[in-house]
């Protein structure tokens, strides 16, 4: 397989059999350095042979020389501009520009013109300098006389250099096929691919950008939590963002005058909802008034909020009076707060509920340990806690390398004050886990806002493993 330039040289040598590097360069338009390196490659492939190597003095036109060979010498241009008639210097300057000074000097020296005051008077009507003919000869590769060469060098129209000249001979012709970029269906069908050479690709270059599709890293974490819960035997349930205070608070034994129910602790939606039919509302009212000693208001319970805890979903499940269930929900909750690197006004909770005939506090602790082990938290410890709707209550702490013990969940056995009004008479365990904070710990995210990043380059840059 030969490169395009190798092929050019090979083509030239096919006609000549023997040639020099100089001729090859002129014929192919390749710079001398390329010619030498390609000859060396071809020789290494056994296609050409270098017969001799000598150093020659070679005369070449300079850039100016090339220009003069094309346009004529300045003194000749001056004469032809005069066209046999005298003219003012100023006029000539404006026509010939910079060349006027050079042409004027040489024309006087050669006696082609005379000058009177500011007027140039021609002595001839046209002139072709021998230097011009010599330049043309040199370009055509002809030899010129030594004297002439010296004068051209002096005028900086020609330079003489020592050049290496290789004499090469074609020793083995190779079958050369046309080069192609694309292998086509056509070529494969007809078998014509055998007749083509395929151009190499620049396989080592960095590729252009390609936008791939990728799952969102935080949602991947949430799906992992769901898988874990399903694996532990839990059924996924879901609820609504807009909830009545009845399910968000009252059913969970949170008194209406409790500080956590003040207006600045949940987002309020205008309007009122409906309370469930049946005895549930009556029983909730009774139990609140008995234990919390205030007058329970149905209107307060009908107020609408954006749920502030996914336990509202647990309350909804309980209101269906399940005999036995293992359920979980994972979703957004909303709480007014000031937004910074560790706080947002919406985040996820995973709430779980177990209703089983012989369910114990020990079973609850065991379940919590199973969950956190499944999430990758190897060590957990339990701290007694307090939630209005559970007793006994527990806070779960997990050990995270580099951080120590981190509070991860609140849990407990639901109070009878919560389960019995709903018609649930078996023991029930429940918990809530803040998912965003946990995700930050596991995903190495320092700013909670990055979990909901609006920067696609950030999402593109996150590695998947």
């Amino acid at each position, binding site marked *: 397989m030969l490169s395009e330039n190798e092929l050019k040289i090979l083509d030239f040598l096919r006609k000549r059999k023997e040639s020099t590097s100089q001729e090859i360069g002129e014929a192919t338009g390749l710079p001398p350095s390329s010619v030498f390196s390609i000859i060396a490659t071809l020789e290494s492939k056994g296609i050409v042979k270098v017969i001799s190597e000598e150093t020659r003095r070679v005369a070449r036109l300079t850039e100016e020389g090339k220009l003069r060979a094309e346009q004529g010498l300045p003194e000749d241009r001056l004469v032809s501009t005069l066209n046999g008639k005298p003219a003012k210097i100023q006029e000539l300057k404006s026509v010939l520009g910079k060349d006027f000074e050079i042409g004027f000097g040489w024309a006087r020296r050669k006696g082609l013109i005379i000058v009177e005051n500011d007027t140039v008077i021609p002595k001839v009507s046209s002139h072709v300098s021998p230097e011009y003919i010599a330049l043309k000869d040199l370009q055509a590769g002809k030899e010129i006389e030594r004297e002439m060469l010296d004068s051209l060098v002096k005028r900086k129209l020609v330079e003489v250099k020592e050049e290496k000249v290789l004499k090469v001979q074609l020793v083995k012709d190779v079958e050369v096929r046309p080069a192609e970029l694309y292998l086509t269906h056509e070529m494969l069908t007809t078998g014509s691919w055998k007749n083509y050479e395929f151009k190499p690709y620049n396989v080592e270059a960095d590729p252009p950008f390609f936008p791939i*599709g990728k*799952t969102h890293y935080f949602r991947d974490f949430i799906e992992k939590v769901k898988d874990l819960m399903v694996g532990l035997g839990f059924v996924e349930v879901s609820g609504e963002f807009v909830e009545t205070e009845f399910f968000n608070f009252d059913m969970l034994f949170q008194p209406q005058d409790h500080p956590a129910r003040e207006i*600045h602790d949940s987002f309020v939606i205008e309007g009122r909802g409906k309370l469930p039919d049946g005895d549930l509302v009556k029983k909730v009212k009774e139990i609140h008034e008995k234990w919390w000693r205030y007058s329970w208001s149905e209107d307060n319970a009908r107020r609408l909020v954006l749920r502030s805890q996914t336990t509202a979903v647990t309350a909804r499940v309980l209101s269906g009076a399940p005999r036995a269930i293992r359920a979980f929900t994972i979703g*957004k909750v909303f709480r007014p707060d000031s937004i910074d690197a560790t706080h947002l006004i919406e985040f996820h909770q995973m709430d779980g509920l177990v209703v089983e005939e012989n369910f114990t506090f020990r079973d609850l602790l065991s379940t919590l340990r199973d969950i956190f082990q499944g999430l990758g938290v190897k060590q957990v410890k339990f701290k007694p806690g307090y939630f209005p709707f559970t007793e006994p209550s527990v806070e779960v702490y997990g050990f995270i390398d580099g951080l120590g013990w981190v509070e991860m969940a609140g849990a407990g056995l639901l109070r009878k004050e919560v389960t019995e009004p709903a018609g649930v008479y078996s023991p029930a365990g429940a918990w809530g886990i803040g998912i965003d904070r946990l995700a930050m710990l596991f995903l190495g995210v320092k700013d909670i806002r990055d979990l909901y990043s609006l920067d*696609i380059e950030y999402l593109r840059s996150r590695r998947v493993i």
Partner: protein
Amino acid sequence: MPTINLNKWILQDLTRLNEQELVDYLFRLKSEVSPVNQDEYSIEVNADRLDMLSLGGIVRALKGITGRELGEPKYTVRDTDYVLEVERVPSRPYALACIVYNVKLNPDLYLKELIQFQEKLHDTIGRRRKKVAIGIHDLQKVEGKVIRYAPVPLSTTFVPLYQEKEMSVKDVLQETPQGKQYGNISVWDNYSPAIMDEKGILSVPPVINSDRTRITENTRSLLIDVTGTNFDSVVETMDLLVTGLAELGGIIGRIKVKGMNVETSPVLRHTLVPFSLEDVNRRLGINVSKDEAVTLIRRMRMEVETGDGLAVVVPPYRVDIMNYTDVAEDIAMAYGYDRFTLESRRGMVTGSLSEKSEIYRKLRTLLIGAGFQEIYTLVLTKSDYQRGEVVRIANPISVEYDSVRNSLLWNSLLFLSNNQHSRFPVKIFEIGEVVRRDESKDTNYANATRLAVAIMDSKVSYEILQSPLHQVLLNLLGIAPSYRRVDNDILMRGRSAEIILRDERVGVIGEANPEILRSFNLLYPVLLAELDLDALRRVI
């Protein structure tokens, strides 16, 4: 959770526990200790343990959990010849008073701690003084033996705490910071409740005390008044206060009460909570003997009656014990949560994902295959971004998040707007919940699951979105969608369609119109589609 600050050295001295022991034992009592400076701890106390909002209460609990003292302490109670006369106060009907002798308020760390206890009780059981308020006076400065709780006209004058001149109650309510904050809680018809001695006003509940009976670090005996709107809460607050002081050496002075349904005060109420050991063991999943259970309960500073059945005698300071489940928790705490033997409950039954999650996963796999980047944005957004009926928040914290999204398109446009300098093309999708009005729900609102897909590039055409989305839907459902030209106010006229599956309209697709692009500061063309996944599920 309420937090109190206590002097480190006093606490260590009274409990004879070092810092690590304090941290460990208080952890078992639902509390968390963190040092504030070299002399002070900040202790987070759980909201149910009102007794632990004071130094005395914490010391009492620690002495129990470490086993140094068991059961209810025997506090000295002495009868006095003081009388509280309660008249009818319609706005705040209940009042009690009592005396505590031999109180230690020196150094003033003790005085500060007492005031902190009072404030914490105001904020918790007192519901910011609405339900219960406390007044504490220097007994030596109280004139006479008869204390009255009665309405006074707002024109009545006295010198309020830290003021130099007499002021009318009306001025106190209008001019002092406490008056402005709590003034309107119990005033009615130009009257305010007041606690008075022979000489005049001692306090104007729930607002402020008089300066005349102000307590100082030299005070030795206290007159305490507690008023409120609920009798039981008033009783409990008084009991919490006096038992906290008695634990530090105070002697409780009982006074006679006229006009309330108790004869004397403090009540020092004990309640009996019967329980069966079997119920407790079954709830906890452990097996403690009767003797063990009794010891564990006594460690929690309560007594047990062991007659025919078991019953906890709940002391006046444990106002959180309601029934046997609370007893079970106290037994568990004394037993130690770390002593429960855990067994894996994995694999006993099978679980399942919700149908929503199943569809979510399948759909997103297909969209990833089609080369779209999944995004995840916030549910709350700016109402200005939205069109159509918007679910507004009545008490937003900022205009940026004053509503719940009713479509995912606003979030997609905002996302694209934020990425105009990123590498093109930007191809995104999001599956998530929005909220729509729905009269069939008990809240009148319902979540709806949506899919939004969008492409932004320097040049776009309808098919570059339609064609992958078509394949996604065809692969998801095995049904090829059809398209019906329809105009839509966010898409360009003539460049938008409804997506139809089996005669059901499931979404829209088209090119965003320049007006909506400009409203999101978007300077590149955008293709958009939104699908209603609930409608999609109905088609399946």
